[in-house]
């Protein structure tokens, strides 16, 4: 056989990678489309995300506006009413602030009435659910991304270096695995909360950012293990050796060969971890250890609902609606995650 | 009335891509104490035919036959309870890979005892003795220790012996052996085959020996049926089949076996690949790989016809005549 030129080999290699890549995604898309529950979940989540994002723009009541005269109102079908004012919002970020300004010019002082009822302080439940959703979803997304970043980097490095470095790094993971992180995190939050202002002044660490980071730290272990496994098995596959022989740079190898394989795992991991993170956030906020008032999240709402349960006055809306919001979202995320996993690797079906 | 009578047995499976006809009209007869060798490639339908006979196919399978009678009783007309009662007791089956076919979580003693309790009504100490005896009968040394062991503690050949011991514990009249030696070393193969021969003689059992290896049936079977694409294409007494193979496929199989008595430079494989059972053309399914094909072969599927005493083939071509002409040249 004639020796081939460098370019020809490169071309063959990238073609092979592409072919393999294409058919994987096309097959996956086909399988995914057959999954009814997953498709509905996807639509639901897309709509929810859009709704969440544009909440400040929409004509809802301010979520933190306390009106004791309207305490515990049952849901009323009062669609439009007056009385909105821009002043009753707290702590708006730059973008949200602009959106509220726009809303003021669009809708004036009109707002949507308490169609889902009010809570113990007369605050509009619908509005609180939507604003709370923003926080919960944001935490879910950001914290998961944090854990992803940490996990993937850690796992990739460990796998790539191999040898004693890999051993050591994985031992650390093993030890960390046996620690019930959740308790440690609660402990950590406790200690850190003590000195919120100090930390903010000294290190410029925003409360929320700290919260994200801490939660993310709980979930990176699994990803690290998985990615390391993938890197290890890929390290020994022939085409990587071939690429190295041809002189392809490390970066190139990583990009063209590692990424497609790991990507499907990452996607599945994301969709399954986001609900777990959201659950954890709700959990912490429920206990009073997470998001603090006047901020609102679904966990805080759930806590409020349960606190308000008493045999004399049944404030069912307060219990039901936040629960449904959280429940539907988590269920949708789970169905989506399951659907993606079945689509990307049908061998894992029924697992 | 023959001991086992099979007539026009058909088995099909509905799949995502269509209906797969795995068995398309198999017919044969078996007598008491006889061994029938059933030879074919993977996908020829040899296993499916006999799983259907045992009633071990998944629910989705569709089984039909003109006649499927064991000792005169129609198997397909029986209710499930009666059919189940026959399994293990009158008709038994052993499988290809004893490692995966034995329960890894139970000791051999427990597994054999299960058969003894069910089919021979033994209890208590008799069970233990029976299990020991069963293992001894198949030539396993120190059976009293072995009954406490798990399958993964046995070697390949011993596992197959143990499986034989277990499945024959009910003293069945018919044993279906589905590729019993395929997963074993050649020397062990011979031992197992000898074991089966011995048991057959001792018990007067009939055996259906399924294999892809013609060499296995050579010393073992009284008659051989060769299957291809879900049908029998040649059937004859063993000696006749080896001396006068008359179907192109059989000839192909024989030429591809290395022989010790002849000096051959190259093995001649059968060209082409096994047929796609989803998309069978109307004619003979072997045609794409056949060196003797004639126009008629593409038009209709050949039926089984007798070309000698107890010798049938399903072929449009008169191969023996053709070969005589070739030789004459």
């Amino acid at each position: 056989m004639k020796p081939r030129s460098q370019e020809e080999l490169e071309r063959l290699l990238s073609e092979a990678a592409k072919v393999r890549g294409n058919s994987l995604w096309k097959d996956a898309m086909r399988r995914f489309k057959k999954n009814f529950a997953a498709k509905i979940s996807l639509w639901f989540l897309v709509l929810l995300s859009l709704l969440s994002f544009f909440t400040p723009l929409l004509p809802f009541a301010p979520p933190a506006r306390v009106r004791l005269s309207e305490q515990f109102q049952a849901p009323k079908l009062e669609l439009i009413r007056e009385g909105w004012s821009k002043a009753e919002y707290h702590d708006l970020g730059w973008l949200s602030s602009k959106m509220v300004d726009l809303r003021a010019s669009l809708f004036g002082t009109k707002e949507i009435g308490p169609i889902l009822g009010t809570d113990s302080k007369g605050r509009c439940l619908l509005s609180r659910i939507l604003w709370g959703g923003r926080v919960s979803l944001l935490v879910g997304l950001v914290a998961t991304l944090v854990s992803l970043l940490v996990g993937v980097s850690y796992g990739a490095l460990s796998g790539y270096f191999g040898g004693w470095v890999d051993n050591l790094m994985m031992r650390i993971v093993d030890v960390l695995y046996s620690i019930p992180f959740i308790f440690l995190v609660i402990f950590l939050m406790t200690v850190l909360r003590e000195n919120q202002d100090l930390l903010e002044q000294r290190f410029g660490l925003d409360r929320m950012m700290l919260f994200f980071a801490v939660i993310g730290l709980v979930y990176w272990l699994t990803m690290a293990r998985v990615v390391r496994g993938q890197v290890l098995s890929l390290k020994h596959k022939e085409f990587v050796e071939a690429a190295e022989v041809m002189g392809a740079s490390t970066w190139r190898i990583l990009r063209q060969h590692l990424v497609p394989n790991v990507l499907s795992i990452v996607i599945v991991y994301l969709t399954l971890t986001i609900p777990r993170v959201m659950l954890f956030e709700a959990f912490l906020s429920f206990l009073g250890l997470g998001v603090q008032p006047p901020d609102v999240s679904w966990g805080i709402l759930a806590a409020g609902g349960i606190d308000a349960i008493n045999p004399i006055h049944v404030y069912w809306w307060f219990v039901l609606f936040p629960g449904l919001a959280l429940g539907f979202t988590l269920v949708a995320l789970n169905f989506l995650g399951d659907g993606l996993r079945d689509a990307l690797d049908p061998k894992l079906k029924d697992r | 009335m023959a001991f086992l009578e099979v007539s026009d047995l058909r088995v099909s499976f509905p799949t995502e891509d269509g209906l797969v006809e795995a068995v398309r009209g198999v017919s044969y007869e078996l007598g008491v104490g006889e061994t029938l060798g059933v030879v074919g490639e993977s996908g020829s339908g040899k296993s499916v035919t006999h799983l259907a006979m045992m009633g071990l196919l998944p629910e989705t399978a569709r089984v039909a036959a003109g006649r499927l009678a064991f000792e005169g009783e129609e198997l397909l007309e029986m209710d499930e309870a009666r059919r189940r009662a026959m399994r293990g007791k009158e008709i038994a089956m052993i499988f290809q890979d004893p490692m995966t076919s034995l329960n890894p979580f139970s000791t051999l003693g427990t597994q054999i005892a299960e058969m003894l309790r069910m089919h021979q009504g033994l209890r208590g100490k008799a069970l233990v003795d029976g299990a020991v005896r069963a293992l001894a009968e198949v030539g396993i040394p120190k059976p009293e220790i072995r009954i406490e062991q798990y399958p993964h503690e046995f070697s390949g050949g011993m596992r197959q012996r143990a499986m034989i011991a277990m499945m024959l514990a009910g003293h069945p009249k018919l044993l279906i052996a589905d590729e019993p030696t395929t997963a074993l070393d050649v020397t062990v193969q011979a031992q197992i085959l000898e074991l089966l021969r011995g048991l057959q003689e001792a018990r007067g059992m009939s055996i259906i020996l399924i294999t892809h290896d013609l060499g296995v049936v050579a010393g073992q079977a009284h008659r051989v049926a060769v299957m291809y694409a879900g049908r029998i294409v040649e059937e004859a007494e063993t000696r006749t089949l080896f001396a006068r193979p008359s179907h192109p496929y059989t000839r192909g199989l024989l030429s591809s076996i290395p022989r010790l008595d002849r000096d051959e430079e190259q093995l001649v494989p059968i060209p082409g690949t096994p047929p796609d059972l989803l998309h069978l053309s109307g004619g003979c399914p072997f045609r794409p790989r056949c060196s003797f094909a004639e126009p008629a072969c593409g038009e209709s599927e050949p039926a089984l016809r007798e070309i000698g005493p107890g010798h049938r083939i399903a072929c449009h071509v008169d191969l023996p005549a053709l070969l005589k002409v070739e030789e004459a040249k």
Partner: protein
Amino acid sequence: MPPFLRFLFKRFLWMLATLWVVFTVSFFLMRAIPGGPFASERNAPPEVEANLRKKYGIDRPLFEQYLRTGVMLLQGDFGPSFKMEDYSVNEVIAEGLPKSASLGILALWIALLLGLPAGILGAIHRGKLTDNLLMFLATAGIALPNFVIASILILFFVILIPVFPPGGWGGFSHLILPAFCLGAPFAAYVARLTRTGMLEILGQDYIRTARAKGLSESKVILRHALKGGLLPVVSFLGPAIAGILTGSLVIERIFFIPGLGTHFVQSAINRDYTLAMGCVLLFTALVYAMNLLVDICYTVLDPRVGLEG
């Protein structure tokens, strides 16, 4: 030393190492962070402060404090409560642990009693209505937080149709609803795992052999399929127990059960650091011990697996 004892010893050492890591991290968090609880003395009332000084030697160098506390812990003394003047952490733990334990054990039983049959049925009737329905419920059970399930159930069975008492600690009827809420998500996991395990086993050759022997379908499933099919569930018990401990924090709060979970959460809210650290260490040890127990059980059940020395 016989292999089993060697195995136990190694695991025990690992546990000590893990606990040590937790202890060290907690210790330095509490003392080294500027403005931390021990660093600034403005937090503790004078009596407690005196106690602390005596026990921990707050005015001593950091490393000496570390050693002293470490030795105390090794002797099983978790020290005095940071916020509750008359109580030691040990006393609080002794009071709360039995309650949480009963709740947790009951929850685990419920998880198995509901999950196992559901999974087996799902596997047997794979693809049919029963299976789809059960698996839908299972996914919902996993996704819904236990406090959402709790709030809905309380609404129905405590308020609207008063079947159960609203909470507190008393007889069995006080335990049932909380244990159910605690165990429900795990029942869902168990159902899914069992179903998967069973399906995998049912596809194995030896199941075909069992049928070929002439066994009835129910015997095939009960005697041959079950043992292998349940193995994933056994492995799951470790994380399940950890999860039940976690879930108990919320459930105990909702149902006003004065168990260890409540005390831990309270300690977090009240900044009762010694109690909080004691709880964290205890939880870690418990989880570790349970995982060890589960691993041993698994080895006993699956003859192909040996103890990884």
